[in-house]
């Protein structure tokens, strides 16, 4: 549309419905949640309007700091592992014929759309004592007795990598598929080995994407819920499980609201950094 006009009555009419829906059912709940974080909790499951900072002060408690630090640590780790594996995979993927690209991406998208509960369940089977890896090893005669690897920290990390991996691929894919192959070919014509080309050309050129992709995946794993609930013990619970637990079983909605807002701020800061990176990358691409 070459000539865009300022909206007339019809234009505002078209906009009214979607904006109203988002305002009422997204901004509305968000503002009510903000208000609730200052409310007073009545033991027994209810809360009443008030203005007190107790819920926010509890964000400084050892229990919360401990949960938050654990969540951030395990999500960072999962993001790093995910990107480190996804990057070479996606690089190879973009060099394949179209048919193979489509097939592999259907596998990736199917994995992405699977419920965390199913991914958590499948890994709990694999890592479990009854029908998992250790049973295969016993069956092959490599082990004497089957062992359980879940629940535990490594099981949680593995599960988080499993749910994060498809997002890592999708975050890196556009930039790698646009990578001008003539540049890599030129590097190889000049005598660089494929390995050297990868490290000195491909990685530096796509560095902003790698960082942006990593941060997005970090936000995603930070919000994960079921993986740590299924594959971890309570000490491996992420912030989301803790928030949901406070809101439902402990019936402390105001404290849950304060924690959710804390998570919102952390996520927004990370998203802002991603946008800043992307803008810088576009500016650099235009400058060339």
């Amino acid at each position, binding site marked *: *549309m070459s000539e865009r006009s300022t909206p007339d009555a019809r234009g505002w009419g078209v906009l009214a419905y979607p904006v109203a*829906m988002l305002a009422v059912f997204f901004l509305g*709940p968000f503002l009510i949640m903000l208000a609730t974080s200052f409310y007073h909790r009545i033991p027994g499951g209810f809360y009443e309007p008030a203005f007190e900072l107790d819920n926010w002060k509890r964000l400084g408690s050892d229990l919360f700091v401990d949960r938050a630090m654990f969540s951030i640590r395990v999500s960072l780790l999962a993001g790093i592992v995910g990107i480190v594996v996804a990057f070479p995979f996606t690089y190879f*993927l973009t060099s394949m014929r179209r048919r193979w690209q489509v097939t592999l991406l259907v596998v990736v998208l199917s994995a992405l759309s699977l419920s965390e509960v199913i991914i958590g369940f*499948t890994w709990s*089977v694999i890592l479990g004592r009854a029908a998992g890896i250790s049973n*295969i090893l016993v069956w092959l005669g490599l082990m004497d007795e089957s062992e359980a690897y879940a629940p535990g920290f490594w099981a949680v990390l593995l599960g988080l990598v499993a749910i994060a991996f498809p997002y890592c691929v999708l975050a890196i894919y556009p930039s790698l598929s646009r990578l001008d192959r003539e540049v890599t070919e030129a590097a190889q014509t000049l005598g660089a080995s494929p390995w050297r080309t990868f490290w000195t050309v491909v990685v530096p050129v796509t560095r902003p994407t790698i960082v942006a992709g990593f941060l997005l995946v970090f936000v995603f794993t930070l919000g994960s819920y079921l993986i740590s609930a*299924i594959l971890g013990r309570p000490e491996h619970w992420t912030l989301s499980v803790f928030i*949901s637990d406070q809101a439902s079983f402990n019936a402390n909605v105001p404290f849950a609201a304060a924690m959710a807002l804390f998570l919102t701020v952390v996520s927004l800061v990370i998203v802002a950094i991603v946008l800043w990176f992307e803008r810088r990358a576009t500016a650099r691409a235009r400058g060339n």
Partner: protein
Amino acid sequence: MRALRLVVTVIVVGFLLGPLLVVAVVSINENRYMDFPPQGFSLEWYGQMFADPAWRAAIVRSLIIATASATLAVSIALPLAYALRSYRIRLAPLLYALGILPFMLPPIISALGAQIFWNATNHIGRIENVIVAHAVFFSTLPLVTISLAMEAMDPHLPEAARTMGADQRTTFRTITLPLLIPSMVTGFAAAFVLSLNEYIIAFLVAGFSVETLPIKIFNSLRYGFTPTIAAVSVAFILIAATVFTLFAVFGNLLRFLGADPAVLERAERGR
């Protein structure tokens, strides 16, 4: 490098599909318990999925929520994507950000917000609460697909219609809308599949009265393993794979995921 490419690809595909294979094996085990190697072959657990009223009800409930919320999500995304692209609106970036934000933030935030919101309105534990919460959360997906299609559309087409005397409504109905249908379908499909699999929003909004399939699976896991869980998981995996395969066959999957058209053309010819 070619050998390395094969090794990396096989490892990754194994990592993504391995657990699914194990579950598929468990789902056809004749025995009630998890066994390896599996004992016998039986499709009983797949039958159980539909025979057991509790499982069947959860499946039906999840399908209703996914269909209704994906429809509602497209109905929110279409006018927003259309208006932001057709008119010069100063707040456009802000409005677009509003549409992207729910999905960008961790789902627990939308989940808790919706729970508190419905508590405040005293309209608790209804299926429509989940539908609306999912619709808003997943409306980002059709918003992105439809916005991309609006950007890719040849601006001369609606212009030509206007020159020939069609009013804005007719232009939209006869030119713009038909061109947007593929992107609406892909947006719908993505929202549908993700809604079908969503847990935490459904749980906090109405988990105790509206038991969706993921909630049912999680609850069953707590009370111990039944092979039905494995059968349901396999069914879900097949649904997701079918949707995205159709997506790849009827839409341009690679383009949608952000590949460069020129590069794709080269990949087509095979390097």
